[in-house]
């Protein structure tokens, strides 16, 4: 109903307004979400959410034809607004009219919206579709809590939040593109704890999922329960110099994601990224040659991850695309408008990626002394500079003889200098938005001890 109202409002504006809407793009998102908040195994409160969101982008074109002092050409301005489902027709039309006016005041190079097209890949139907709301919550809740008993009280779940959302998304535009997709987005954050001689210690983690993959869910909690038990006996991290640092899981994904992010058309067009097509992305400022050149592929679908999609947000059909090959940026991915402005082929904006395995196994990485942080306060990697750092909540320190859990202190470094010598693990695994090596190892990271 609202989509019809919006279409009619645009037609009315174009019939009566001084500013003409040349093109438009509309996204309708219908969300049904069940939420549970568990404290010590009991639900604090129950919540249900029904939400509908409309995001409309209007494009207004202008043509300047040789006025002295001005650039000749066709230009396109844009404005994006939220249409609330409770808007009346009058309210809707007024807001779109304001957006058209705002769009007429921005002045960007022209680009063409995608027209109708068939998907090039199919997104598998989620296993959640076959479950009732009660079964969905209970299946996931059981998978997350079931591993707790294996720890016999030495480690336990303190609190857990669980969200399961079914989203029906319709993307359509003025060029005839119209596609409906259904996606499932599961999210759980959990706090695990264990008793130490100086009190209770905790670790925090979260997991995103689109399938009722009980093994993956259980494993995530089990890993953190084991780690929090280690945190309970961890000693302050000593001052360590010159030791390789191994980053795992989400932090390893952040590192690989930096290469993916900096290959995006919008980053390169704005000069936020220093990457250039056809050039190595792993050379350090000192000109060091990469030890292990990286391969990165943009992925439309990775089973189990919520960001899987057949089309990007502009409606461009996605297909697997090699982005970085043997350490060299070969194909730019990202928004189609920036691709046009850069004069490179359109590939679309992907949310997912994969990275080729490295040559070292985890066992080989662990054969020599190392520091392996597995939980930070908040690992931060700057998408522009590549600078990273964080306080360590739990790390494993191998001095060549024994592995000791340590806590406190911090690590920092920059991919701009460390990327040439970085090593990837042979083992790969599913993370939040990628399939990538489970570990990355750096030489030269700054380690600040806790004592």
């Amino acid at each position: 109903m609202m989509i019809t109202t919006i279409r009619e409002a645009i037609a009315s504006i174009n019939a009566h307004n001084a500013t003409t809407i040349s093109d438009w793009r509309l996204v309708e998102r219908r969300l049904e979400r069940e939420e549970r908040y568990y404290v010590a195994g009991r639900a604090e409160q129950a919540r249900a959410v029904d939400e509908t969101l409309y995001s409309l982008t209007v494009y207004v074109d202008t043509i300047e034809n040789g006025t002295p002092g001005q650039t000749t050409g066709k230009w396109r301005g844009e404005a994006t607004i939220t249409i609330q489902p409770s808007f009346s027709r009058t309210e809707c039309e007024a807001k779109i009219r304001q957006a058209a006016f705002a769009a007429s005041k921005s002045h960007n190079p022209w680009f063409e919206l995608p027209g109708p097209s068939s998907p090039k890949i199919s997104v598998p139907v989620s296993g959640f579709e076959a479950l009732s709301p009660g079964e969905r919550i209970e299946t996931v809740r059981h998978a997350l809590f079931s591993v707790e008993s294996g720890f016999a009280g030495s480690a336990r779940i303190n609190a857990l939040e669980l969200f399961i959302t079914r989203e029906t998304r319709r993307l359509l535009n003025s060029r005839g593109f119209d596609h409906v997709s259904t996606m499932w987005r599961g999210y759980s954050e959990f706090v695990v704890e264990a008793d130490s001689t100086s009190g209770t210690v905790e670790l925090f983690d979260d997991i995103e999922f689109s399938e009722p993959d009980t093994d993956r869910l259980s494993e995530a909690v089990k890993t953190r329960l084991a780690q929090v038990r280690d945190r309970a006996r961890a000693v302050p991290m000593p001052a360590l110099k010159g030791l390789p640092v191994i980053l795992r899981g989400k932090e390893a994904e952040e590192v690989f994601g930096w290469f993916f992010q900096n290959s995006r058309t919008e980053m390169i067009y704005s000069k936020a990224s220093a990457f250039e097509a056809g050039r190595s992305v792993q050379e350090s400022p000192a000109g060091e040659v990469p030890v292990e050149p990286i391969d990165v592929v943009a992925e439309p679908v990775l089973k189990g991850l919520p960001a899987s999609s057949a089309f990007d947000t502009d409606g461009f059909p996605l297909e697997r695309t090699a982005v970085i090959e043997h350490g060299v940026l070969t194909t730019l991915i990202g928004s189609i408008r920036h691709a046009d402005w850069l004069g490179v082929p359109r590939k679309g904006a992907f949310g997912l990626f994969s990275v080729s395995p490295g040559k070292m196994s985890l066992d080989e990485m662990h054969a020599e002394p190392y520091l392996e942080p597995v939980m930070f306060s908040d690992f931060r990697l700057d998408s522009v500079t590549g600078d990273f750092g964080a306080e360590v909540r739990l790390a494993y320190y191998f001095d060549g003889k024994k592995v000791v859990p340590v806590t406190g202190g911090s690590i920092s470094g920059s991919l701009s200098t460390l990327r040439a010598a970085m090593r990837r693990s042979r083992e790969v695994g599913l993370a939040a938005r990628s399939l990538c090596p489970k570990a990355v190892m750096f030489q030269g990271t700054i380690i600040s001890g806790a004592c």
Partner: protein
Amino acid sequence: MLKRKHSQFLLEARPLLGKVIERLEPHFDYISVLATDDRGLSYFALPGETRTAEPMWVQRGFVFRAQREGRVAEYACAVLPGDSALTAGAAADAATTAGNARAAEPTVIAEAVRARLERLLADPSLMTFPQIPDEPASAEFLGEIEEDPFAADPEDVLSRLAALREKLTDGKVVVMAQSRYECVDVSRLFLSPHRSLMQSFLWSQAYLFGVARRGQLSKMSYRPASGRKGLEILRGLESSVPELAQELADLLEAVPMEPGEYEVILDPDMAGTLAHEAFGHGVETDMFFKKRAKAVEYLGRRVGSDLVTMYDGAAGVDQTGSYLFDDEGTLATKTCIIEKGILKSGISDMLSALALGIPRTGNGRREAYSHKAYARMTNTYFAPGDSTLEEMIASVKHGWQLSQLNSGMEDPRNWGIQLICMVGREIRDGKFTGRVASPVVCSGYVPDVLSAVSMVSSDFELGGSGACGKGHKEYAKVSSGGPYVKTRMRLG
């Protein structure tokens, strides 16, 4: 000054919602509704591109909260259920929202809401809470600004932002700059059988970012501006360009930090974030309820030096974390968390306050109507002292002045602290050496860091350009700051 206006949508929905609440009241021990209508604007000036959009905080919807036999449930919706007149632009004619609201049938809506709440309350795993109070109250607030962004010509705003980024970009050192302005016109209505509260105010934030590059080496820094203000916040950014350009040039010469413990002077933004992360999150009483906060064992005990006094409150100061009432209908207060080094009090949401039997401080906040309310900070700051910044710099034997916050993170159970900043300037024997380090990761044990506070400046600045998450989600608008603070921290 221009006074804000309440949302017309909420004004017109108010009588209908009042009737819905009336019809729901007999079925529950407690019932309330929060209705939101927050609109907003975002303007971007990027290299070769400008555009307008809306901030993530734009929302319009309703959340009903019910309690029965101690159990609590919430149902959130963008459109009132069972109300065809308010559904999805159904009125193809030119009827106003007011017309729709009047046409809606409160009994139908109430029954639909009740059905959803009943289903949720039937969950046998739900724990019980003491009765949620519904003390009589009626109040309203309208904020004031100077330059109304909704009345401004978009071309003027984009031109001002484009001029900012062009002034910063020299093409030699600073290869890229972008600027951004956004505002949210907040409008909230809270109704229960005995409470009727309404507030409307506007907050703005703006940023100027720059990237300096030499070969493959890139460095980034920024200047923010914020407040419960309008477009007038851009004036501060316009004057910051020369200083930011120099800072970006300095960052290209930055050295890695030599790990160790140092004397540090935190600028007000860094100091405020220390307060926020150290004893802001640590005293959110839903953390007490979950037994996740070490602070509960330290109430009434020393956690910092005599120079440390710290507050949180949506009342008492005017910044982006200020409001009249929170998202659970509790009126805002100002809480003294630490007084002269002694931990005094926590900040609470409704349910944790009831469960723990502690005062309600008006800190129950939601990212949006569709999100749960948690105990959240508002404006969090250290109280000023009596030193000058010059005296603080002169007192440093070897240390660093830290500025340009990147991020912070709490550890309420184990009292670790993480602050990351982009700029550290070395001080030796009371003078800047000219050496710059970047990035700088600051860590430590919270009571050690606060006990080492040896000087506090008489300055007082609050910044509200960021957002605060609970864990890694639930973003709420907050501010933090206060004076410059001298302490000791581990840097790396």
